[in-house]
């Protein structure tokens, strides 16, 4: 499964980091990075992140 974040939408709220700390990471300059390819074991976490992202910036494919 592939995780996409639309960086035109993302406003670095950090909600995704809270929901899925192993997948998303916020850096000192408030920029966001994430693990692009995840396994089934991380699906629930990422779906939770999708639900709480205020900007609807996260998508999961596959």
């Amino acid at each position: 499964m592939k995780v996409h974040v639309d960086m035109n939408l993302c406003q670095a709220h950090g909600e995704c980091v809270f929901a899925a700390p192993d997948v998303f990471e916020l850096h000192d300059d408030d920029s966001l990075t994430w693990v692009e390819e995840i396994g089934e074991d991380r699906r629930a976490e990422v779906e939770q992140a999708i639900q709480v992202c205020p900007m609807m910036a996260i998508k999961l494919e596959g």
Partner: protein
Amino acid sequence: MRIVVVGASLAGLRAAQALRAAGHADEVVVIGDEARRPYTRPPLSKELLVGDHTVEQCDFPSGELDVEWRLGVAAVGLDRDAREVVLEDGARVPYDRLIVATGCRARPWTGPGAELDGLHTLRDLDDALALRAALTDGRPRVAVVGAGFVGAEVASTARRLGLDVTLIDVAPHPLLPLGPLLGGRTAGMHRERGVDLKLSMGVEGFRGDDHVEAVVLADGSEIAADVVVVALGAIPNTDWLAGSGLTLDPGLVCDATLTSLDDPDVLGAGDVVSWPHPLADDTTIRVEHWTNAAEQGAAAARNALAPPAERTPYRAAPYFWSDQYDVKIQAVGLPGRAERIELVEQSPEGDRLVAVGVRDGRVVAAIAFNAVRRLAWYRRQLADPPAFEKLAAAVAEDPRSLGAPVQADAAGAAAQGGPAR
């Protein structure tokens, strides 16, 4: 088991999605009085209002959700004996479990001048489109009454559109729950960007023939205005529950598991719910923030599927954000319940900071201005509220801290609080 959700916005949508995600295969009915599928409200005072986002960008993806939508029709009553929701068109919708997610509406102005054209409130998409049309028609002079989050955001958006803006509040500083220190900062931020702030100043009413021409202030003076935004907070939509026997305060009063105090088959989620929270010593709170509505929708849905004894409490620390100009304000916990707000870290330039709210010596809230990443740490601490001294000491030793706060700031902020009457 047939589950009916009343209110087709964030909390209602997340509830319906969580029911399906939990494997609930029976009927789910979502009733909403707005004709449109659920959309997100925060851009209504920000991205949509300024013109950066389209209406479609506010829509939540809901196309694949397998539920029965009953949109454009309000619930007008609840018959708990028959276990039916009564709709305005006379239809009765039976339920086994009911999730109340009817949110809030904007508190209207009811004083002198309430009938004038040019007065706006902001809660739904139609309000936002009407306000945007008014703000982009020529160069109107804008007055915003109420410097809470929505009012302050509208003022910021109107300034970004290049308009003259007056922001009026009877309180001594904007964003009352954040206290005088951060409220004073916010006041300074608006002043620097050219907003005319009238603080500690009540509004008598509005003057004009058909269209508003001026705001009449408590001291008798007037502020000329073509567009007035009344941003006096929100009222829970529980009128339809009057006579149902459910306890209303006026929010729907629930226990820690978001279950109505009076009926285990009725649960609530989002802006409409009052429920006991550990950060408020288990007294009831009502929270009008996006993340709370999203999370409670899902939590209420999971609990609706469980027998009462197996339901789990919803105890997440409330979280919200507000965007004003280039400043992102974020808070976790209950700043409004704090006895004092203390600055704990601040960048040398003073543009980024974190403050904490303290009650009974414990940290019950953290507020960040442009310090997203720092806030995550504070949010974790609130799971078990630390003593203020302990937290302050940990921050002082943390190499990731933005820096030691400059204490002179407190005096400066207080001085910015505006004239007292």
